[in-house]
């Protein structure tokens, strides 16, 4: 065990994966000598050489197109997109290529070896273009998996699984926790299963669901609600595609109430999917409408970041409203 922050855990996962399998290659803008703008790929080029960790030209559609080809050839590329906000030029390569490669060829060819890592989310005064949470777009793409860790331990275990998964994975990293989230991380090689939710805290009155950086927000809200005698069950989805419907619905059958929190804009965000599915599965158990506490339907702002964000206070208010329904 070692104390690591989220970035160090990711760096450690990359080193672990690269040592274990020489088909694992790391590519992206500034990931080489410099180690990436957040330093997630520090020292990789030193240890593994330019062949296995290299800078690409500044072209996201090319990074993912190139990585798709590399994966189809049998390598395991880990492609970094510098910010989640800049993944969109690669959207076509992801939705029309990565996700459909295996299906369209009847399993002859696939991009299963591909992992795309990208920092996402707000809270760093980044404005429109260094704050977006685009996970919902990817949750609507059959053929890929979407994973989001909330702490260093998860980050290492989930990233190792993602890299070794036979399916392509998009791995969103909550950038405001890069240095803020610190915890014990095994130095050994370990994997955490994809598609499984993590029950962070058990409770009996209401189920709170989030992923990534928002998990600590709902925990904070749960803490505050405890002061009112409300017992919250806190669930971190960890994967949003596929997501762990069973864990959430079991919880909601027990608590009778559900609240989902995400930073992305409310409309057509992933909370909608969770709400739609759970109201269907748990209809007779629900004692109040499922609540969504989400980002506003505006571009991500700058000075009004606090107002935009689905923070612990807003979550707490929604818990109270749900309890009093």
């Amino acid at each position, binding site marked *: 065990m070692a104390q690591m922050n989220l970035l160090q855990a990711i760096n450690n996962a990359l080193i672990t994966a690269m040592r274990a399998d020489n*088909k694992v*290659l790391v590519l992206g803008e500034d990931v080489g*000598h410099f180690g990436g703008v957040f330093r997630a790929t520090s020292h990789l080029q*030193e240890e593994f050489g330019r*062949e296995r960790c*290299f800078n*690409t*030209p500044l*072209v996201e*559609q*090319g990074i*993912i*197109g*190139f*990585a*798709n*080809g*590399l*994966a*189809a*050839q*049998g*390598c395991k*590329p880990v492609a970094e997109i510098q910010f989640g906000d800049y993944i969109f*030029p690669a959207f*076509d*390569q992801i939705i*029309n*290529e990565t996700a*459909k490669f*295996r*299906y*369209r*060829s*009847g*399993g*002859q*060819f*696939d991009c*299963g070896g591909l992992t795309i890592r990208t920092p996402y989310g707000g809270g760093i005064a980044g404005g429109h273009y260094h704050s977006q949470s685009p996970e919902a777009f990817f949750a609507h793409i*059959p*053929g890929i*998996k979407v994973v989001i860790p909330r702490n260093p331990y998860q980050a290492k275990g989930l990233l190792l699984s993602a890299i070794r*998964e*036979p*399916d392509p994975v998009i791995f969103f990293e909550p950038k405001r926790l890069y240095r803020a989230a610190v915890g014990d991380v095994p130095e050994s090689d370990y994997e955490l299963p994809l*598609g499984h939710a993590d029950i962070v805290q058990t409770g009996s009155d209401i189920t709170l669901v989030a992923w990534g950086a928002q998990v600590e927000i709902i925990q904070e809200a749960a803490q505050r609600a405890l002061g009112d005698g409300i017992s919250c069950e806190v669930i971190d989805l960890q994967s949003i595609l*596929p997501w762990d*419907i*069973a864990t959430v619905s079991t919880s909601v059958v027990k608590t009778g109430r559900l609240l989902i929190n995400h930073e992305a804009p409310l409309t057509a965000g992933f909370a909608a999917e969770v709400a739609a599915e759970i109201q269907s599965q748990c209809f007779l158990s629900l004692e109040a409408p499922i609540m969504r506490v989400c980002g506003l339907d505006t571009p991500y702002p700058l000075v009004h970041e606090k107002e935009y964000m689905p923070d612990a206070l807003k979550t707490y208010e929604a818990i109270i409203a749900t309890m009093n329904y």
Partner: protein
Amino acid sequence: MTNINERNHIAHINTTQEVNIISDGLVAIPMLQLLDTNGEYLSHNPSPLTQESALKILYSMHYTRLLDERMVSAQRQGRISFYLACTGEEAAVVASTAALEPVDMIMSQYREQGALVYRGYTTAQFMNQLFSNKLDPNKGRQMPIHYGDKTLNFMTVSSPLGTQIPQAAGYAFGQKYTGEAALTICYFGEGAASEGDFHAGLNMAAVLNCPTIFFCRNNGYAISTPTAEQFAGDGIASRGIGYGVKTIRVDGNDAMAVFAATQAARKIALAESCPVLIEAMTYRLAAHSTSDDPSGYRSADEEVKWQEKDPIARLQKYCIAQSWLDLEHLDAYITQSRAEILAEVKRAEKEDYASIDDLFADVYAVLPKHLDTQKQSLQAHIKKYPEAYPKTARELL
């Protein structure tokens, strides 16, 4: 961290005191031509094609032409839903593939069935794909002409244009990295070369030293759009310079020249670990696809001029002049191929369709829970209403 050397990104550049406008008065890049339209050999060097290789190319071109004719008819008869012919461009495709090794990966756009023919894709295989039956390697999931064969190193076709271009760079990088003595060829049209992915792919291949042949079929049109509305430069070849990519322009209707150019390109690409761009100047004699009618956007006179440059006739004349070709044998081959195609059409259209399992398989390596749920409820639904889902009802009863 390792030491950082001093860099100077302008060291190679001289200065001038004149405002030189580059691109004014540039001379067009010439194209390699070895056979004229009469099949005369124009060069003083020995011909790059042996009898055997010339005949294999010629026969493959004939087969491709025949297949296209038959399948365009089959589409008209409503037997298949869609088809897309290579007519007029057989030399560009077949002769370039002929200059490769079987280990080389082919990433095509969609008009490169001649490459498959050359590599030995069988009539039965073509038909299984075109009829989307249960023997289609794509399991009936893609439209006709989306061929793919792993054993022949022919990547499954994907409709979105240009996406295969950066993929080819990545694939070739992987070949080099894993020590294969092989490269990747990537075919695309001059229309697709307008996509952002073209820019990405060529630049990345150049910077990352990928052994890739980028083979552009400049056939004058992207559906209805003529090249004058597609680009303003000297074709696609002139772009190679901008990327620092070695470039060859070739007469795409001259199989000999295409072979020579591709052979040279392969050698350089592997020896120097670098990409090579080939621009083959050719013409889409066919309609864009069976959904298209070119009379709406181009003149018949223009088509006639290009029919006169027919790539098959050109190589055939050469082979005849060399006394390499047994015309009776060729005739017999054509007759037999036609019969084979007809027979395979009849067989393939009678085959069953892929099973309902194949609707759900291959989305992921292992069927995830939510898809399994959807599958089970679909199966239950079909069992209840079998007459509404004739393709899959039978297997469930």
